[in-house]
């Protein structure tokens, strides 16, 4: 091979390596956007939904949370910001199916105001995951002792498979869970789902369970 050929191959290899590095760094540094909530009447209303499959690239089959911003748009993120020492009212539309829990301990409500939550308008403190449709997910902030089980929908129903799912539509079944808590002092508080719901991963705890933006994220308190 001539000198020109060797030079061309070298340039191509270096260019490919550079592209690989750029994509890798970009992927490593990627973080979802943060939804900022400002208080209304001294309270903050956080709205999320859970879906059995996100339905879009790069991981259309992954289970995921989505967050609604204050403009009413659904954002694929699990990062949100609330002010410190403020009442946070959370509404979660649960579109996924459910199952018995690996550990029923997370079937109870802890750490919320009144130590309870509501499921489709009815107050509850414990869900027996072994009966009915079981539990789909939880919303838990372990460092604050907050954990709320999210009742599942029937696995045989026509479930929403492409996010965002519309809570106002009757096309897909969903459960509405509400609860409140008081935000702590400033800091970053990790929250997550404790149901090992990552389909196709060992013990159900890989993939979306270990990726910020899907089944866990941070509550930033300022």
């Amino acid at each position: 091979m001539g000198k020109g050929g060797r030079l061309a191959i070298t340039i191509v290899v270096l260019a490919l390596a550079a592209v690989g590095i750029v994509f890798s760094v970009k992927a490593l540094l990627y973080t979802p956007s943060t939804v900022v909530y400002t208080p209304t009447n001294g309270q903050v209303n956080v709205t999320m939904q859970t879906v059995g499959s996100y339905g879009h690239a790069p991981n259309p089959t992954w289970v995921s949370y989505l967050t609604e911003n204050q403009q009413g748009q659904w954002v694929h993120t699990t990062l949100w910001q609330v002010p410190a020492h403020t009442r946070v009212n959370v509404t979660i539309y649960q579109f996924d199916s459910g199952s018995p829990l690996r550990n029923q301990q997370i079937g109870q409500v802890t750490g919320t105001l009144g130590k309870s939550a509501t499921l489709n308008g009815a107050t509850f403190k414990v869900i027996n995951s072994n009966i009915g449709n079981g539990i789909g997910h939880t919303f838990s902030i372990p460092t604050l002792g907050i954990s709320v089980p999210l009742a599942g929908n029937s696995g045989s129903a026509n479930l929403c498979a492409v996010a965002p799912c519309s809570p106002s539509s009757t096309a897909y079944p969903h459960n509405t869970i509400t609860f409140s808590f008081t935000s702590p002092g400033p800091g970053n508080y990790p929250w997550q789902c404790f149901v090992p719901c990552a389909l196709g991963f060992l013990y159900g705890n890989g993939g979306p369970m270990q990726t910020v933006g899907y089944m866990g994220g941070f509550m930033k308190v300022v």
Partner: protein
Amino acid sequence: MTAEAPTPASEPAAAPRGEGRATHWLRLLILWVVISVAADVVWIKLVGPHVPPGRMTDMATGAAFDFNVLIVLALPVMVGVWVYMLYAVIVWRASKVGPDPVATRFSRGSGTVEWTWIVLTTVLVLFLAGFGTYELVQPGGSGGGQGPTPIWTPTTSSPLQVQVIGQQWKWTYRYPQFGGFETNELLLPVNQTVAFNVTSLDVIHSYWAYQLGVKADANPGYNNVAFTTPIQTGYFVVRCAELCGLWHGAMFNEGRVVSAAAFESWAKATERQLAENTALLPAYAPTYTPDANGAAGGYYPDNKDPYSPVEMYGAPQPAGGG
């Protein structure tokens, strides 16, 4: 070991290295003793009382005591090496006494010195290994986890049983002597021996109650028993010490050692408070058998229908698992 070779006729009978050998040894000995004693005193008085993990339990106290003994014995060894090295650099530097002797008896080593060094350090290390092991397991059994059938057990016949359950990514605690309730909170009574039964529902975790001096692996399907006796009230931190996934860093909580009366009161109140959920938990068992199949069930520990209705994660389902 080599014996000193006869001095060749062509080399000096004794290398002129300044003062006589006895003087050097005496100086080194004095320097070593004085600095070693000073270092040990400084350690014992200033650092020793603050050595982690503190004095919250008998295990922690034993570990801190062990650590102090190790340091007090190791400091003279370290000082000996440093004193000799610095003495040689200063007193026998080439600009003062000429170049190093080559191919003389001074460059061939000393069997006496080498054997003394080997024997002394070997005895020291073996002593510390035996002493450290004894101290870690007495009088309350090891806080490091001894598997399901501990060799070293505490003298008390009825320790408080606390089951520590690790799961991605939190710790929960079951109290079998109080109806088997399971909670996020860890409270312990002071002056009562505790038997931690450490297990996991998924991957390997490590239960590290830092100030208690307890650190035991949490393996699925395995009951790892560790003992301790709290001797001070106060807070302690529990962390996972085994990298277990994305939220490993958030897998911690705070425990509390309280008076016996306060513990009794808390335990009974919590038992009542959690009764509804406790009734849904499986019966207390040393270990549970979680399925690899999480989303479609995988309850613990019975592996009976209706759990695990489908094989979702490719893991073989146990017989009767549905």
